[in-house]
Every structure is written in structure tokens, then in C-alpha cells.
């Protein structure tokens, strides 16, 4: 069973349907016990970092997610869910994340050329780092495949946890991972067959599918 963490942020319908499409059983849940019992856990999220981080703490689910990370079971953050795994975000101020991965979340404004639009919306190619090429998350990906992004902030200072970047006038972090803690800035559930392949690889890490 895969648990999709429901903390009142974002639309979880697509994620649930995409897991069903690859034959993985999942539940959308805000129950800490159910999250702890799952074989693998996905932390989704859209919207603003500060609100999401606050909701995760208020619901007590931050502790549940930290517990999953410590247990060694696969944990995948998607989009804002990935950003929450880092130590800090500088989106409208300075906010504390879960601190499960090294690095921080910063605006892409000023980093990318001024003529490029923000948010970075659309399909862009994945370029895997050597660590990414060895990551089980990318077992079904060779590099160069297109995935769907929607974001204005990106993770930086990820060190060896950097698995993939995408080129938007600058190399932006597209995926990260350290042991069982993984994250995608893009939306695998909206990235067609490539995205489903990435979700399938993640579920396989949890012994499901």
C-alpha cells in the first residue's frame, strides 16, 4: 500500500489515478498511523511553502513523514512536497522545512535569464547526474526524456543528493535523493508514460508493483 499524504494542500486525484493506472494500490490519507504502516509514502503539494509547512506541522503529519524517512521506507516528495524535504525555503521570507535533505529552496528569478517567464511551466528535459543514473527512481529513464514542470522556486545546494537537472536558461534541480528520501520538482503524475515509469520505479522500491 502506498500512502499519499493528505494535509489539505493540493489535488490528489491525479496522483491516486496514476498509481491505479500502474497497478499500485494507494490511499489518500491524513492519518499518521496509516502513513507509518504504508510500504511507501508520497508527499504531494502545490501552493505556497509557508502555508504548506505550517499545515504539515499543525496536522502532526510532519512527524509522521520524518518517521517514514527514518524507517528506511521510500518517501517521494513531489513539487512543493519535494521542496518541503529541504532545510529551508526563501519563498516570501525564510521558512523551515523538514530538513531531510541538504539544501534550500530559492527563487529562480535572477538566476535564469530575464527574458524567460516565471513560473517555469511546461515540458522540459531531464538530465541525470551520475547519482541519478544509479538511482532506482530512474530505473526506467535514460535521460533526455521530457517531464512536466510548474514552479517558480527551485532547490539549490543539494550536493550529492542531486539526481537530475533541467535546463531553463540555468540548470534547475529536477530531482533529488538520498537513500530512501526522494523528490521530483516535476509532476510525474502529469508527465505521460515517462512519469508513470518513474512512479512505477518508486513503487518497486517499496516492493509494490
Amino acid at each position, binding site marked *: 500500500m502506498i500512502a499519499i499524504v493528505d494535509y489539505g494542500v493540493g489535488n490528489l*486525484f491525479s496522483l491516486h489515478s496514476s498509481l491505479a*493506472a500502474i497497478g499500485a494500490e494507494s490511499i489518500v490519507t491524513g492519518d499518521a498511523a496509516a502513513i507509518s504502516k504504508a510500504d511507501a509514502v508520497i508527499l504531494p503539494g502545490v501552493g505556497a511553502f509557508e502555508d504548506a509547512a505550517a499545515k504539515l506541522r499543525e496536522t502532526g503529519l510532519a512527524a509522521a513523514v520524518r518517521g517514514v524517512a527514518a524507517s528506511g521506507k521510500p518517501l517521494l516528495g513531489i513539487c512543493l512536497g519535494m521542496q518541503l524535504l529541504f532545510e529551508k525555503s526563501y519563498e516570501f521570507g525564510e521558512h523551515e522545512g523538514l530538513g531531510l535533505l541538504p539544501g534550500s529552496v530559492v527563487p529562480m528569478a535572477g538566476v535564469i535569464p530575464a527574458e524567460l517567464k516565471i513560473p517555469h511551466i*511546461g515540458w522540459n528535459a531531464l538530465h541525470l547526474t551520475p547519482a541519478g543514473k544509479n538511482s532506482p527512481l530512474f530505473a526506467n529513464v535514460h535521460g533526455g526524456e521530457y517531464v512536466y514542470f510548474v514552479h517558480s522556486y527551485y532547490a539549490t545546494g543539494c550536493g550529492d543528493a542531486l539526481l537530475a537537472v533541467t535546463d531553463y536558461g540555468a540548470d534547475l534541480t529536477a530531482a533529488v535523493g538520498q537513500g530512501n528520501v526522494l523528490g521530483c520538482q516535476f509532476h510525474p503524475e502529469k508527465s505521460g508514460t515517462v512519469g508513470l515509469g518513474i512512479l512505477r520505479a518508486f513503487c518497486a522500491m517499496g516492493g509494490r508493483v
Partner: protein
Amino acid sequence: MITKRIIPCLDVRDGRVVKGVNFAHLADVNSPVELAEYYTASGADELVFYDITASAEGRALFTDILCETAKRVFIPLTVGGGINTVDDFDRVLKCGADKVSVNSGALQNPALIEQAARRYGNQCVVLSVDVKRVGGELRVFARGGRDDTGREAVGWIRDCVARGAGEVVLNSIDTDGVKDGFDLEMLRAVSEAVDVPVIASGGAGKADDFVTLFKTLPRVDAGLAASIFHFGEVKIPQLKAHLRANGINVRI
């Protein structure tokens, strides 16, 4: 680098795709679910679902079909038609829409854009605008292109982007159905005025029209069309191969 997007638009009424569909190899050419799956498999980058149902009953049927489609299609889905309130946003987002497009609803109540953007984020709010030239001015039309609102288009679009619209679909009434190419002049005026993605709609008749669009106006992010895709006059895989051969970055 980010790719230019190709977006087929499905007009749905009473649970069926209308505006003519002509695919010999599909079992049920008017099924939105089958058509959406077909387009996804042929390389569409995104789909737009347009609800052209009038009655509340039809709206419920549309919602069912949308859910059914969203369950089986794993690319971004934008839904428009009859979006007048934040509750309408909620209804379609719960069914699996990723973005919601507003047109007449925003003209009646521009604050709808702010309310929706605050609640769901700017990336979720797409402004769709029907524009026609009247006495040398670009004018916004309402009710599916029937009523002249008297508003100047570029100013209206700028205002909506300032309120939080994260993307603009520009439908040129002047070139719609003419199949002689996109309205480059109108698209230039709008794409230079805003910093959010602009999606060109109205006028595509052949693959070269998309090449001209992206070559002439590098700030336009996507091209949208309906009947030329439905009738197979332009097939998405060939279109994308043609775009790539002409140096335009697309997802293949």
C-alpha cells in the same frame, strides 16, 4: 530547454465531443475519453476540455465525463466553460482538472481571478479571451464571441494577469475557422504585454501555420486547435516532427 506546447481542444456537450470528429480508426469518435486517450498517445502536450453544456443536468454529466477522462489521461488537463464562481473551480478541480479557464465569468466579475488565484495558485487560473478588431481597436467579446464588451483587449489581459491569471489563451475571432494561419499581429500585441505564457488559438489550418507562429513570435508558448486535429488534417506526430525539422523545440 522548455518546449513549445501543442494543445488539442475538445468541446463537450451532453457528454460527447462536438464540432466534428473524423477518425476512422477510433471505435467511438465522439467519446471525450477515447479521444483524450488518442491525443495523449499521439503526443499532445496538454488537453483542453470545454464544457458547452447549458443546463445544470448537463453540467453534472460533463463533470462525470471529466472524472472518467482524468482517471485515464496523465498529461495536464485544462477545463473551461461555465466557470463563474470559485465553487465551479472546486467542482472541476476535484474531478482531476489541473487548470481552469475563465472567460465570461471573469468579465462579469474580475475579482473571480483574484479569489481563485489566492485559493489555488496563479498557475491554476487560465484567462481565455475572445478578441475581434472593431474600428482598428482590439476588442474583448463575451458570450462565445457574440457580445462586444467595449473593452480594449490588451488592457483587459494585463489587468487579469495583474489579478493573478497565470496563463492566457488568446482566441482571435477574426481568424477563427479561416484556416489561413494564426493572428500574428494580435498575438504579438498580447505576448509583448504580459509575462505569463500565451497560448495562440484560432486560425491554424496546416502544420506550417504553427512553424510561422513559433518562428515569428518566440514569446508565444503554445498553439491550440480543435477541428484540424479532430479531422486529422494535421496529425500531432507529423506536426511535431515538422516543427523539430524547422528548429523548434518540441517534446517528441
